[in-house]
């Protein structure tokens, strides 16, 4: 990935206080952005299992979509979330979670994005997110 994209990603991660609250990180493998959420005690939603809060996994996947869009679009105005649908397949264990976003369609004003999140293996996803995002005017 270009240095521009790497800079854009770094700026995105540094910018949002909520990204720092989660402790979310991201890195490029070639041109693919992988978002990383290291486990932290405050991300737990169910202390009995224990399991990550479903909202944390949802928020992490939404931020992954926004990060991918902002890197791809290179627009100074961040996209706005219009709607998201989150599907939970299994509980998020207290360990590192990964996510990748797939920009299925980027139109003039609206983007359709699919995100998947996994832990041990990408073949065993913990959750999916599908969403529409209003693109910032460039």
């Amino acid at each position, binding site marked *: 990935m270009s240095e521009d994209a790497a800079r854009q990603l770094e700026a995105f991660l540094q910018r949002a206080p909520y990204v720092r*609250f989660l402790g979310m990180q991201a890195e490029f493998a070639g041109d693919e952005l992988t978002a990383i959420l290291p486990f932290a005690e405050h991300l737990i939603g169910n202390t009995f299992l224990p399991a990550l809060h479903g909202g944390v996994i949802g*928020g992490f996947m939404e931020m992954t979509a926004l990060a991918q869009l902002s890197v791809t679009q290179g627009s100074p105005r961040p996209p706005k979330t219009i709607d998201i649908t*989150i599907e939970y397949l299994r509980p998020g264990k207290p360990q590192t979670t990964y996510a990748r976003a797939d920009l299925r369609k980027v139109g003039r004003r609206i983007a359709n994005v699919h995100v998947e999140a996994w832990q041990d293996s990408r073949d065993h996803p913990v959750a999916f997110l599908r969403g529409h995002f209003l693109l910032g005017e460039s």
Partner: protein
Amino acid sequence: MATSSPQSAALGFRFVFADKGRGSIEVPWREELAGDPDSGVIAGGVVTTLLDHTCGLAITSTATGLFSTATLDLRIDYMRPAAPRAGVIAEAHCYKLTRTIAFVRAQAWDADPADPIATAQAAFVVNRPAAA
């Protein structure tokens, strides 16, 4: 209590009420919960967690027997951003509960319930205690 978990404590969730399939929780605004430091608008992920958590509260308020819930799916429509530096209140209604599934609607607002920032529709798996 449905409001107590490390994540809900970290977000600063405050229990508002829970009664007969309805529940409400609020999250006061705080700098570190902002999605954008310039606007100071609370992050979408905070609203997602609040709506998910409030749905769980509404479900557990339908019955006195202890049972746990797990989110199957959660759909959220964002009507508009919250006002800058505003906290958010959510209210959820579990309108149908079967032996295994709970169907829930919820909405979130900053100042006026009639002018929501987000609405949600969700399905949860309900784990009941072993038959008594």
